[in-house]
């Protein structure tokens, strides 16, 4: 049986992992390479790396940091931030990623999703979305709108319309980042996560808001997600006590959510 994934997310600035609240006020955590090694040893299922300022600064992704992380991580490694086209995707894969995450750039140029899927297979292309609850109104029938550029810019796109289009264009996985819940430790936005999971047939990843093991379990059950992105719970200095991957997985097992078994020794 395919198990559910616990995915660590790195918001990287200048080679260092940072932690934000609602996409703002990033505080420093650790060098990306060091944190990656620690989490790999702790048997994390996957690492997602976002170069979070590349897109807004209109510069290419920080490939040197991607390489430094990839050298130490022998679990899946997804990389995003500032991907503008096929050449950038090639560069990221050649730096050691096996999935490419596209977010703001896909809204500006949706064909980038199709191009990536044709060149590498759809399993390589992850559509990451920043969604915010804005209430049901004209053009936003789901009540959730897509934002870009670090949650700063509204797009007028309905979240469910956008993820369906992304799947049609060739996205192999959809990440639902809740802007409202990001860094709040108040739980995933289960409503939009479940709505996206029902709207598409590709795997869906819950993101934004996990503060407890119960939140993670909820995202993977009621939220319908195949994977749960966590960050604060693992390493935020704002938390009084962080959890290890092993503690999270033991909690998920107790809640009846299967994950990759822990390997002793």
């Amino acid at each position, binding site marked *: 049986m395919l198990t559910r994934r616990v995915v660590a997310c790195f918001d990287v600035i200048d080679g260092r992992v940072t932690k934000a609240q609602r996409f703002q006020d990033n505080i420093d955590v650790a060098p990306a390479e060091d944190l990656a090694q620690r989490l790999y040893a702790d048997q994390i299922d996957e690492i997602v790396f976002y170069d979070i300022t590349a897109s807004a600064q209109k510069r290419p992704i920080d490939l040197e940091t991607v390489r430094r992380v990839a050298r130490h991580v022998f679990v899946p490694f997804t990389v995003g931030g500032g991907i503008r086209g096929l050449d950038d995707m090639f560069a990221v894969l050649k730096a050691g990623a096996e999935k490419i995450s596209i977010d703001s750039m896909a809204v500006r140029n949706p064909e980038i999703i199709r191009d990536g899927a044709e060149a590498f297979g759809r399993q390589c292309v992850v559509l990451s979305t920043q969604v915010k609850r804005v209430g049901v109104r004209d053009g936003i029938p789901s009540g959730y709108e897509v934002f870009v550029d670090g949650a700063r810019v509204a797009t007028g796109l309905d979240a469910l319309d956008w993820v369906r289009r992304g799947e049609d264009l060739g996205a192999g996985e959809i990440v639902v980042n809740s802007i409202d819940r990001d860094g709040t430790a108040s739980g995933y936005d289960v409503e939009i996560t479940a709505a996206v999971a029902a709207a598409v047939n590709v795997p869906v990843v819950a993101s934004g808001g996990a503060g407890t093991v119960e939140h993670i379990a909820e995202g993977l059950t009621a939220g319908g997600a195949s994977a749960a992105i966590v960050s604060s719970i693992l390493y935020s200095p704002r938390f009084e006590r962080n959890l290890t991957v092993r503690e999270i997985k033991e909690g998920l097992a107790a809640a009846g959510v299967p*994950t990759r078994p822990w390997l002793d020794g």
Partner: protein
Amino acid sequence: MITVVDYRAGNAPSVVYALEHLGLACRTATTAAEVESAERLILPGVGAARATLDSLRDAGLVDALTERVIAGGAPFLGICIGLQVLFDHSEEGDTDCLGWLPGRVRRFPPGERIPQIGWNAVRPVRPHPLWDGLPDEAHCYFVNSYHAVPDDGTHVVATTEYGSTFCSVAGRGNVAATQFHAEKSGRLGLRILSNFATWDGTDPGSARC
């Protein structure tokens, strides 16, 4: 010395990083001459079947691989798309493949989310030298929408469940391949790579092509 085939649509660096971490000597090959002089070969992959074969053909690597592996008997490990291209044909883009192993590559049937992405249990159905030291059930990392259906049951080394049971490790003589990403399957995947480094290319369960 392990030679990792480095083609345009591939992810050779991930495999190289894993081999370096294990302290295993390796190099990458981008030319036919480098493939033909290889002691043992890994064909990695993340891509689509047609793009992979086009890249290999454009680089003149298809004939070199066949010469070195099928005629020359060099130990060979295919990973992910590097497993799928070994069969006769893939439904993905209606693509004719290498034909080293008889069989076809089919899309997962409807019912489960496609692609399959994540850690799934791999269970050997017969002994194979690459599985030395691994448990009877090992969780490994998969990213695939298609899977191989070998014509010859002896070419199935291990299976995995996703909607139905599919071949997750294939082997025929000196040719072996994993549908999962051995280089991204943590400690158990690394063990497969280290087993490959010392494998003499014999397979008690299946004769060479």
